[in-house]
């Protein structure tokens, strides 16, 4: 392997609707239709009631920054050397699930705890679309 690219998400039987959603610029989260619990990452059965019954619901894409880092020294350097510094954050969506993503659209040192953010969709490698977050307008 001589060429490096950013890691490309590989959808599986559970996650395919999520990535189909991002390609349609929708943030879809799996929901247990037995007890109503949202679950992320996607799974066959509900960790709360163990039902297999589920559907997908579009969430607001709004949330808050739970924690964040600023990456200065990237690994692998071949891939992320042009990106630094960049922000990775844990984002608590208003609907109650936590995601990992990047905060874009502001200075890396402007990110603050509980900062309100909203989803934006960004074309990624391999035809995938990544949900990223920017400060709420």
């Amino acid at each position, binding site marked *: 392997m001589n060429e490096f*690219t950013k*890691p490309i998400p590989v959808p599986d039987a559970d996650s395919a609707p999520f990535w189909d959603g991002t390609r349609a610029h929708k943030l879809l989260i799996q929901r247990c239709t037995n007890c109503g619990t949202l679950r992320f990452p996607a799974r066959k059965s509900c960790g709360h009631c163990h039902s297999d019954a589920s559907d997908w619901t579009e969430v607001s894409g709004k949330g808050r920054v739970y*924690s964040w880092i600023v990456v200065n020294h990237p690994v*692998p350097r071949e891939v992320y050397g042009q990106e630094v*510094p960049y922000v990775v954050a844990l984002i608590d969506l208003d609907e109650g699930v936590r995601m990992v993503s990047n905060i874009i659209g502001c200075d890396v040192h402007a990110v603050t705890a509980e900062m309100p953010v909203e989803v934006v969709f960004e074309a990624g490698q391999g035809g995938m679309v990544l949900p990223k977050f920017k400060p709420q307008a």
Partner: protein
Amino acid sequence: MFTLKDKYAIAGVGETAYTKNSGTPVLNLAVEACLKAAEDAGVDVKDIDGLISYNFGDSVPAIAVATALGIPHAGYAVDFAGGGNAANLITLSAAAAIESGLAKNVLCFRAMNGRSGFRLGGGREMQARGITQYTAPFGWITYPQAMAMWARRHMIKYGTNAEQLGHIAVTFRDNASLNERAMQRTPITMDDYMASRFIVEPFRMLDICLESDGACAVLVTGADRAKDMKHKPVYIMGGAYGGGPDQGEDLFDAIRWPDHSRNYAAYIADDLWKSAGVGPQDVDVAEIYDCFTYSIIMQLEGFGFVKEGEGGPFCASGAIARDGSLPLNTHGGLLSEAYIHGFNHVLEAVRQLRGDCGPRQIEGAEIALTTAGAMTCGSAMVLRN
């Protein structure tokens, strides 16, 4: 809960040199450390009948080491799927294996070319499958990144700051300056710490442990057998392994962990102290898993040495120095001695309880804590002489 108090002991310890490039396969490192541990105990290698290791990243299987040692009947050769979290788990499991009759003399080891071989966080997978499809595409790939995320949450919640982390790095390096095995022995100041470059904010270079080649081993046996061996036994008083809810799919995955300012320690502390029959106030010296400076703070809080949120000020107070109320990581820790996935902490605890630590010896050390793990799961053990 672990219920084998004082029934089993560590009778021997051994390790290789700690280097950046061992120049030899991991199997050879494991064999060298195991032979030294058996010799230290005075046990004939032919009488070893159990080997246990853990295998995240670079490793070598227990069965391969049993073969290389020429052990005639390795009745119990087991590899745990785990990283630093498993360092005490394997030692506790040795006691459990002996108790069950599966073995009598068990070598526990960790061997890795962690610098010259497989480097953790050096992944270059182009395809993000499983849990990594939700993390790696965003450039969230390495352990320093993951733990920096936890540290930030603690800073948000409690005001933990860089100077407090710096005190941890400076203290452990000072300890390492008295340890001939340590890879980094040059003392550092707070100014050196603050001037070290950011790797992933809030972590600087000096918040992050070394990458190392090397191996460590201990020999676990029954307390009665240990009494007849070369050294005074170091008894296993108690221990615990585990974590809390929503640990994720692997050691890195903590997306759903409820509170990133408290880690596994808070969930296993009760079992640990109950099994040992002592509490944090009884510990004379502690070797606490320090893959990063910050991991010390969550464990001090979780194991009840201080209240949640007070770990930073405690470390800055001088309490963790050799002359403080709780001497920590007397060998220099993973930050300054070497990163043998936490197993070198066990060897240092044994040597402190034997009184073998020379200029860094904590006078009168009778009870030691060793811990392993930084995030959602981990293990800990209380030892006494």
